[in-house]
C-alpha cells in the first residue's frame, strides 16, 4: 500500500518520515477505510481547493494528518485517552496534557474536530460517520449537531478509540453534553465529566458579566481538575499552567507573526488556508503544538514575501469581510467565498493588528 505516497508528499511529509511511520500510516488508513481511490480524491481536493504553492500550507495540512494518525493509534499505542468537547476553553486541554506527562502517556484532544479537518477537508469522506451518527441516536431532521454525529459515528464504526474520560462542554450548548451521555451509554460506559455553566447573560450585559457566574464556572474548572487528580493522579497547579502556556507559545507566536501579513492589501492568504490554523490550539495538544507552529512560521515567512512583492490572492482593494467562524469540514465553502472575490482578513482566532 503505497498509494498514499503522493498525498503525503504533497502534505510535506519527508520520505524517511513516511518510511518510519509506515506501519502507523497504513493501520490508520485501513481502519478508516481509506483506499487508493480516497487517496486520489484527496490529492485532487488539495490541488483544487488549497494554495499548495505555499509550503507552509502543505505542511499545515500534513500536521492534521499526523494528528489523525495519533488519534486513531492512541489506544494501540497504550495511551490513556482524554477527549474534550467543542468549543473548548483555550489552554484547558493543554494544561491537562502538560500535567498528565508527570504520570504517563496520555492522548488529549477534541477528536471530532480532527476528523472534520481530515476526513472532511482532505478526504471529503464524512458521510459514513454522519450516517452512523444519524442511525445511532442523533437522527436527521431533528436539528441534531453534525459535529457530534461525526464523533458518535467514529466511535460506532471503530474509527477512533473510546476514551478513558470525556470532558463535556456543558457550558455551551445542550447538544454536546446530551450526546456525550448517549455515547457513554452506547460505547462501554466510559466516564464523562461535565464542565458546566449557564448561558444566562441578558442582552447588553457584556462585557460586565455577573461575577457569580464567573465563580460558578471557575468552581467547575477546579472540580474538573480535582477529579482528574483523583482519577489519574496528576496535579494541575501554577507551575503546570505556566508550562502549558510555554507549550502553546510557539504556536501563538507564529500565528501572531502571520497575522501581521493579514493587514496587507492585497491580502496574501485565502480563507481556505487560514482555516487550517484556527483549530490547532482548540482541538490539539500534541504534534500540532510543535509542527503546527513550524508550519505556520513557514507560512508567515512566505506571506511576508508576498506582501513585499505586492502579491495577493485577490486583486488590491477586494472587499474585505470577516467570517465569525469558518467552516472546517469542506474547503469548497471557504473557496467559494474567495472565488466570489471576497478577501477574508480575519476570523475567530486570526485577528490581525488594527490597520
Amino acid at each position, binding site marked *: 500500500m503505497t498509494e498514499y505516497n503522493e498525498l503525503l508528499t504533497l502534505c510535506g511529509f519527508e520520505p524517511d518520515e513516511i518510511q518510519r511511520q509506515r506501519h502507523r500510516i497504513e493501520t490508520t488508513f485501513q481502519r478508516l477505510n481509506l483506499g487508493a481511490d480516497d487517496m486520489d480524491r484527496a490529492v485532487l481536493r488539495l490541488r483544487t481547493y488549497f494554495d499548495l504553492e505555499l509550503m507552509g500550507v502543505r505542511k499545515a495540512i500534513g500536521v492534521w494528518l499526523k494528528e489523525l494518525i495519533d488519534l486513531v493509534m492512541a489506544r494501540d499505542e497504550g495511551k490513556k485517552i482524554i477527549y474534550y468537547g467543542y468549543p473548548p476553553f483555550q489552554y484547558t486541554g493543554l494544561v491537562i496534557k502538560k500535567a498528565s506527562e508527570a504520570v504517563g502517556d496520555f492522548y488529549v484532544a477534541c477528536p471530532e474536530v480532527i476528523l472534520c479537518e481530515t476526513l472532511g477537508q482532505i478526504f471529503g469522506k464524512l458521510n459514513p460517520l454522519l450516517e452512523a451518527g444519524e442511525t445511532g441516536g442523533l437522527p436527521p431532521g431533528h436539528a441534531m449537531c453534525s459535529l457530534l454525529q461525526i464523533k458518535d459515528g467514529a466511535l460506532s464504526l471503530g474509527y477512533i478509540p473510546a476514551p478513558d474520560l470525556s470532558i463535556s462542554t456543558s457550558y455551551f450548548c445542550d447538544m454536546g*453534553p446530551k*450526546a456525550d*451521555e448517549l455515547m457513554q451509554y452506547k460505547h462501554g460506559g466510559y466516564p*464523562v465529566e*461535565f464542565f*458546566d*455553566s*449557564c*448561558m*444566562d447573560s441578558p442582552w447588553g450585559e457584556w462585557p460586565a458579566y455577573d461575577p457569580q457566574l464567573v465563580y460558578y464556572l471557575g468552581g467547575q474548572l477546579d472540580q474538573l481538575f480535582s477529579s482528574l487528580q483523583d482519577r489519574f493522579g496528576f496535579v494541575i497547579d501554577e507551575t503546570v499552567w505556566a508550562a502549558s502556556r510555554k507549550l502553546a507559545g510557539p504556536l501563538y507566536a507564529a500565528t501572531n507573526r502571520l497575522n501581521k501579513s493579514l493587514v496587507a492589501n492585497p491580502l496574501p492568504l485565502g480563507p481556505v488556508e487560514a482555516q487550517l490554523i484556527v483549530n490547532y490550539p482548540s482541538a490539539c495538544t500534541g504534534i500540532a503544538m510543535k509542527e503546527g507552529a513550524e508550519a505556520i512560521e513557514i507560512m508567515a515567512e512566505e506571506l511576508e514575501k508576498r506582501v513585499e512583492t505586492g502579491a495577493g490572492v485577490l486583486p488590491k482593494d477586494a472587499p474585505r469581510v470577516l467570517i465569525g467562524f469558518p467552516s472546517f469540514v469542506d474547503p469548497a465553502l471557504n473557496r467559494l467565498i474567495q472565488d466570489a472575490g471576497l478577501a477574508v482578513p480575519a476570523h475567530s482566532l486570526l485577528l490581525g493588528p488594527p490597520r
Partner: protein
Amino acid sequence: MGYIPGGYFPEEIALAAEAIPVGMVRGGQHGPIEHAFTYVDHWVDTFCRSQIGYATSGEDPYYNLIDVLVVPITDSNNRSISDTLSYNTDLELFVYGVPHKKSAEGCLYFRHGLEKMADRIAELTGIAITAKKIAEAIDICNREKELLRKLSLENQSGTTAISAKDYVMVNHASMLLDKRQFVEKLETLLKELQSVKVSEAAMPKVLLTGSTLAMGDNKVIDLLEGTGATVIVGEFAEGIKQFQHQVKPDENFMGALAETYFMERVAPAWFRPGHELPEHLIQTSSDLGVDGVVWYQLMFRESYKVLSHYFPEMLKKATGLPVMVLDSDYDPAETGQMATRVETYIESIRK
C-alpha cells in the same frame, strides 16, 4: 409577572412582593408557531417558539397583560425566548440561570438568580419582601402543592371521576388563577372526588411523561383517553407545575426556595448527568403498576430527543415495559399518524 413555566420560578417570591404571577403556559396551537418564523428559525423547541409567537402577535391576552416576563434559562431553547423577545419587543425580560448539575455550587448560583429577581420584583411593585410576607406566600403555595399532590394521587388511582385531561387543566389553572381562590376551589374539588369513585377500567394504564405539556396541547391526552386507556400524568419538565416538594420553613427563605425548586425536583433531561429522570421514571412506572409509558416530546428539544433514543431500552431492561415515543410540532397534520400509533400501541399492551 409572566413566567415561563419550567418549574424554576418560585411563585412565592412574586406573591410576597404583591405581584401577580402568570404562567405563560399556553401552547398546542400551530398559528403562533407560524408567526414565530418571522423572528426565529425552525430549530427551536415547539413550546418556546410558541411563546415567541404569542408574545410577538400582539393578540395574546396573557402577554398583553404582563409587565415583565421572567425566563429562567434552563437550556438554549428557553434562552431563545428571552433573546428573541428582548431584541424584538418592548417587553421587559428578566433572566437568571439554572445550572445543569445538582450541586451545592449550582444551588448557590440558582439562589443568586432568585435574589436578583426578588430585588427586581420588589422594585417594580414598590413592596419590600419581608420575612412575614414570604412566610405567608410559602404557606399558601405549600398548601397548593399539597392539594395538587393529593389530586395527582386521584389521577394515579385509576378509580377517580376526574379525567386526565381535566386533571391537567386544573394543574394549569394553578399557574393562572388567584392563589387563594384556587386553593379553596381545589379543596372543594378534592372533597367532591372523594365522594364519587368509578370502577377501574379494563383498558391499559399508561404513564404519560415528556418535555412539555402546555395548556391547550390536548392532542396526546385526547388520543390516549379516546382509546379508553387510563392516563397517569407523570413528570413533565415544563407546563406541569411541580408539587412534590414543599418549601421548608426557614429564616433563610431564599436558600429554602432554591433547595426545593432546584435540588429536590426531578431533574429534567437537560441536566448533566441526566440519569435522575430515567431512574425516576423507571421507579414510578413500576410503583404505579402501569402497562406502558408514553414519552411525549416537542420537536427540537434536543435533550429529550437524545434521551428518547435509549430510555426505552433502559426501561425495558428494568421493568419489561414498552415505551412509545411521540414527537409533536403542534401541527394538525401530525394528528392522523399519531392517532394510528396510539391505537396500535394501546392494542399491543392490552392484557
